[in-house]
């Protein structure tokens, strides 16, 4: 607690910094003239001054200038610039409305940032993408997709097609904080992992922080994907939507009170059940593969400087393949946010609740059951930001969260079901965090981002907890005591500081070097010992046996921008990082983690390390051709050693993580063929992921009784005749033994020592934009995913069948081993 107070004092000390004498505050907002939505990243330049300003996510800017008259230029990509004369004799506040530019050939693919943001920004390891960019990338089955799109960025990978989640710089899937308008999501997948669980039409922009993570983010150990949703149009109603082979989308937005209150509603639903009914295969006809999601956001402006919003999101997936088991997962969130600007302060309050439930329903007659774990999160959060002019900007805030993590009671779902109830406990925990961050320019060429976050966690009762015999690996038979904690009793606490540091040194206007360090902690963990994360994998809170995961990342980067004779802008960067992961979770061989009240006996805690280099060249602006090319070398390892309370994994030797894929090469291009038609393509090459191959096999019970019986009674061996009347072939002394069938098992030794074949894929697409000026705007997107129909290996696996002489068989599985065309129609009116 003392540590918390120190941090609070540190936060408050920033508030005493004041305004420089003789200067006045020039502030305001920049908005879209039609929709009245704020424009983030718009630039403000002044005549006779080398400094400028940029708008934040609420379109707000503020800076302190000497008293005199200025010619100011307001500009943002995709908008016509605007000029104004400013007479600064006192504090001035203005509202600027920019009109969309009709010159659409000058396009940025990946971000709407200033062209030198790559060099001038202090932090590194950050990728930003506009919602409009998502739709220009070639897609799978016509679905523009957030997570599939960020896979095209360096440092982001996945274990395979259809796998849920993504891995960033050697971190696990659960170590990514995915925020949808500030609300963390525990599952981001539709149809297992083929699509993202929120609608790309609703996305305003997204930021992926791989390193240099600001101190206002916390709770996950490796990365942050911050997705901001659009606000509704404040001036006019509009409808847009799309039809693709896999789903249909509709988005409606407009003013409830013109200029004051807007509403946006986006819904998306799958069509797969519709198709399944047409298949002649009875198994497919009995199958289900549903998903839908819905976002709604109500925004109300209070005066010029305040805004409140109420938003809700829900996502549902249900999957059943012929069998009697239905998998479902569902997310529901609701949040209230208040934004306010006051002088050089900005305030953002966020209160939200989310309910993520997942599980399995058994549908077999007489044995109907349901198992539905869930996580209910409730959070209050306050973020403050203070613009200190030439002293930079300070951010600080506090966050308080409670969790109810229910492991899911297994119970009958109908009155006729004969199954018994198997209760599982709910875990209660709370998490508090305070943070401070400061961005400080140091002379003209240096800038420093400092941050400190303190996170504190408590696991509380009511809970029944097992104590294990000290000095022996945890196992059911080493339980020594059962402890019962009452409601509110603290079972275990963890906490710690998370320092964040980024320093940028500008060598010239186009070149900079940056270094960074950040520490992140994570108190909730996803338990998954399958090849890829499953939507019904359970989350587990930190407890006395599972300390918080801690990741320290050190990075250095070199950034350079340059342009060619045609004024095209290129951004080049090389980033190097090293990560140390503490208390990462691993599993006993063959661990059983579902419905296991003593799941800690199946878990191991160890260390990890990851390092890599990311080389990136982006043509950010160009008349026709834009895109990027990247190469990443990345490694990720785990080390699970034996100690007094656990056995080692992999004989205590370090092994590559399941997603350790050293070489990644990606390119993305967008070529505007005409004003309305563009061609886009992306290419991905990655090394094969690690896999454990069997290096031996063995048999246990080997048809024993029968063989022994035959042997003892003289039945075996004996001569025989073939159907062709030839001499004996079976059942002779020399052949009976080899033919002896048995329970054949593969024997594995060291983990992840081999690799599946490399992965390579080329996707292409054409987009035909709508004609300008028409009320009904229809656009088409035609894509081919995996153009060369390459059968990329998802896995190599081994079957040891019984009843066959050749019992050791090896197979390769390709999840999407064909070229997949799709045609999508999008409309807007």
């Amino acid at each position, binding site marked *: 607690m003392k540590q918390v107070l120190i941090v609070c004092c540190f936060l408050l000390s920033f508030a005493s910094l004041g305004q420089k004498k003789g200067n006045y505050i020039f502030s305001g907002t920049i908005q879209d003239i039609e929709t009245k939505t704020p424009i983030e990243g718009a630039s403000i330049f002044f005549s006779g001054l080398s400094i400028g300003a940029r708008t934040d996510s609420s379109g707000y800017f503020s800076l302190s200038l000497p008293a005199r008259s200025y010619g100011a230029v307001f500009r943002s990509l995709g908008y016509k610039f605007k000029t104004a004369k400013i007479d600064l004799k006192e504090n001035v506040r203005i509202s600027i409305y920019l009109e969309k530019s009709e010159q659409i050939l000058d396009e940025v693919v990946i971000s709407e940032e200033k062209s030198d943001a790559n060099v001038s920004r202090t932090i590194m390891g950050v990728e930003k993408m506009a919602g409009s960019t998502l739709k220009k990338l070639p897609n799978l*089955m016509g679905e523009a997709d957030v997570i599939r799109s960020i896979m095209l960025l360096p440092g982001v990978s996945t*274990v395979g097609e*259809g796998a849920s989640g993504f891995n960033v710089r050697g971190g696990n899937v659960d170590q990514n904080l995915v925020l949808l308008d500030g609300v963390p999501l525990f599952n981001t997948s539709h149809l297992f992992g083929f699509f993202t669980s929120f609608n790309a039409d609703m996305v305003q922009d997204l930021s992926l922080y791989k390193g240099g993570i600001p101190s206002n983010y916390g709770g996950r150990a490796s990365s942050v994907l911050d997705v901001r949703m659009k606000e509704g149009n404040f001036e006019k109603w509009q409808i847009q939507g799309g039809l693709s082979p896999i789903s249909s989308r509709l988005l409606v937005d407009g003013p409830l009170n013109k200029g004051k209150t807007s509403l946006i509603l986006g819904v998306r639903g799958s069509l797969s059940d*519709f*198709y399944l009914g*047409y*298949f002649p295969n009875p198994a*497919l006809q009995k199958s289900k593969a549903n998903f839908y999601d819905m976002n709604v956001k109500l925004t109300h402006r209070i005066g010029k400087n305040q805004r409140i919003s109420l938003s809700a999101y829900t996502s549902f997936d249900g999957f059943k393949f012929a069998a009697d088991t239905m998998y479902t997962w569902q997310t529901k969130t609701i949040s209230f946010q208040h934004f306010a600007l006051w002088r050089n302060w900005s305030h953002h309050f966020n209160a939200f609740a989310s309910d993520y439930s997942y599980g399995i329903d058994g549908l077999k007659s007489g044995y109907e059951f349901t198992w539905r774990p869930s996580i209910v999160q409730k959070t209050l959060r306050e973020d403050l930001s203070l613009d200190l002019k030439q002293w930079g900007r300070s951010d600080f805030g506090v966050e308080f969260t409670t969790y109810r993590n229910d492991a899911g009671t*297994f119970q009958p779902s109908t009155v006729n079901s*004969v*199954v*018994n109830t198997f209760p599982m406990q709910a875990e209660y925990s709370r998490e508090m965090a305070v943070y401070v961050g400061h961005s400080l320019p140091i002379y003209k060429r240096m800038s420093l981002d400092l941050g400190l976050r303190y996170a504190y966690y408590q696991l509380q009762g009511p809970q029944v907890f097992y104590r294990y015999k000290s000095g022996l690996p945890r196992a*059911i038979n080493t339980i020594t005591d059962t402890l019962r904690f009452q409601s509110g009793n603290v079972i275990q606490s963890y906490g710690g500081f998370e320092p964040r540091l980024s320093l940028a040194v500008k060598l010239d206007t186009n070149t900079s070097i940056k270094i960074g360090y950040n520490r992140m902690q994570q108190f909730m963990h996803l338990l998954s010992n*399958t*090849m890829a994360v499953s939507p019904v994998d359970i989350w587990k809170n930190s407890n006395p046996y599972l300390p918080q995961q801690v990741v320290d990342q050190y990075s250095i980067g070199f950034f350079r921008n340059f342009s060619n004779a045609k004024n095209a802008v290129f951004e080049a960067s090389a980033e190097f990082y090293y990560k140390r992961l503490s208390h990462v979770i691993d599993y006993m061989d*063959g661990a*059983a983690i579902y*419905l296991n009240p003593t799941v800690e006996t199946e878990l191991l805690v160890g260390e990890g390390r990851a390092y890599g280099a990311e080389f990136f060249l982006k043509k950010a602006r160009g008349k026709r051709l834009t895109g990027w090319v990247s190469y990443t070398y990345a490694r990720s390892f785990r080390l699970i050693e034996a100690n007094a309370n656990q056995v080692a994994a992999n004989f205590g030797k370090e092994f590559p993580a*399941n997603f350790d894929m050293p070489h990644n090469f990606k390119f993305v291009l967008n070529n505007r063929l005409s004003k309305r038609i563009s061609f886009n393509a992306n290419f991905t090459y990655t090394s094969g992921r690690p*896999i*454990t191959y*069997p290096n031996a*096999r*063995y*048999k*246990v*019970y*080997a048809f*024993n*009784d*029968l063989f022994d019986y035959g042997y003892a009674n003289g*039945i075996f061996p004996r*001569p*025989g*005749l*073939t159907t062709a009347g030839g001499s004996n072939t079976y*059942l002779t002394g020399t052949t009976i033994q*080899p*033919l*002896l069938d048995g329970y054949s*098992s593969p*024997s*594995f030794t060291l983990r992840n020592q081999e690799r599946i074949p490399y992965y390579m894929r080329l996707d292409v697409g054409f987009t035909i934009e709508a004609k300008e000026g028409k009320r009904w705007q229809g656009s088409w997107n035609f894509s081919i995913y995996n153009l060369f129909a390459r*059968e990329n290996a*998802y896995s*190599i*696996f081994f*079957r040891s069948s*019984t*009843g066959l002489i050749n019992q050791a068989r*090896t*197979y*390769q*599985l*390709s*999840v*999407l*081993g*064909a070229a*997949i065309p799709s045609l999508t129609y999008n409309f807007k009116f």
Partner: protein
Amino acid sequence: MKRLLILAVLLGLFSCETEIMDFKTENLSNALVVYGEMSNLAGPYTVRLNYTSAYSPFDPTEFQGQPIPGAVVRIVDETGAVTALMEIKKGMYQSPASFQGQVGKKYRLEIRTADGLDIASDWQQLSMPIGLKSFTSSYKNAEKVENMHFKLQASLQDSRGSEDYYFVKRQDFMQFLTTCPAPPPPPAPVPICYNKCWQAIQNTQPILADDFYLDGREIDLALESIPYDDFTEWYVQLEVYHVDKATYQFWKRQEDQRILDGGIFDKVPAQIIGNLTCLNKPDRQVLGYFMVAGKSKERKLVDRYQGIPAESYQKLVSYIEFNKLRYQNTPLWDCRLAAWIPYNVGLSLPIY
């Protein structure tokens, strides 16, 4: 339109599975494999010792793994009584016929190999055997002979209030008929013709059951049906082992590994270690299991002749004729010589 819809994209339809025919490994493991069972039923009990073999050996004699001869193998009970096992064949050790497990007693297997490795199992308590509550068969008619079958139903009565786990072995015995040759011309005597023999159908697929959600209730065993492709006799034998949780988990994990299909939710490949450890070289892996459990055994005759609809029977007769299931082209005086029948156990069934 319908055709177009059928062509519509569905994710599963784009996946493909191909067998890799040239996958080769060498046996890089020096693990020992031990497997033995004992129960309350009369012995002798057998324990096998061998090494692992290469994953895909081309030499079939390597399928089983090289046996480990010359070991001292014994079963010790909780009172310290020792029963030595005799090596009856290379790597195959057997207890005296007089030795029989007692319910409630704890046993452990101890081995000293010829090269000095001391291996021991955990202590295993011999549990109370659980018999089958029901074991029946019923004929299910169909249009085609290939779809006609006998549905098998077997169940256990679980006891309430305790966690119970079951490991079940199934062994089927099917009678097959051969065709006798034409009798020799008189006056040569007509030899006796043995044309009814038994085939033991290969099966080492265990059936695992537990009372996780059916505590105290009747637990159905998942049994595959029997085809109606002949009217000969068919016996199904079930051996029910009432095992402890650790034993059940060992088999469950083995099964998890064995049913991998490479899918995205497959378990990560993993070595499954049983209840055996090498005491004087803990790093030396010992695979396999020493299973001590209360055991019951039941055999059920499935009558494939009585009570069948006449029309179905006629279809079956034609089916047998068409498929030459009497091996008319290879007449034999003695069906025991029919070497093309795998596990032809001869004229009689193994002793029950």
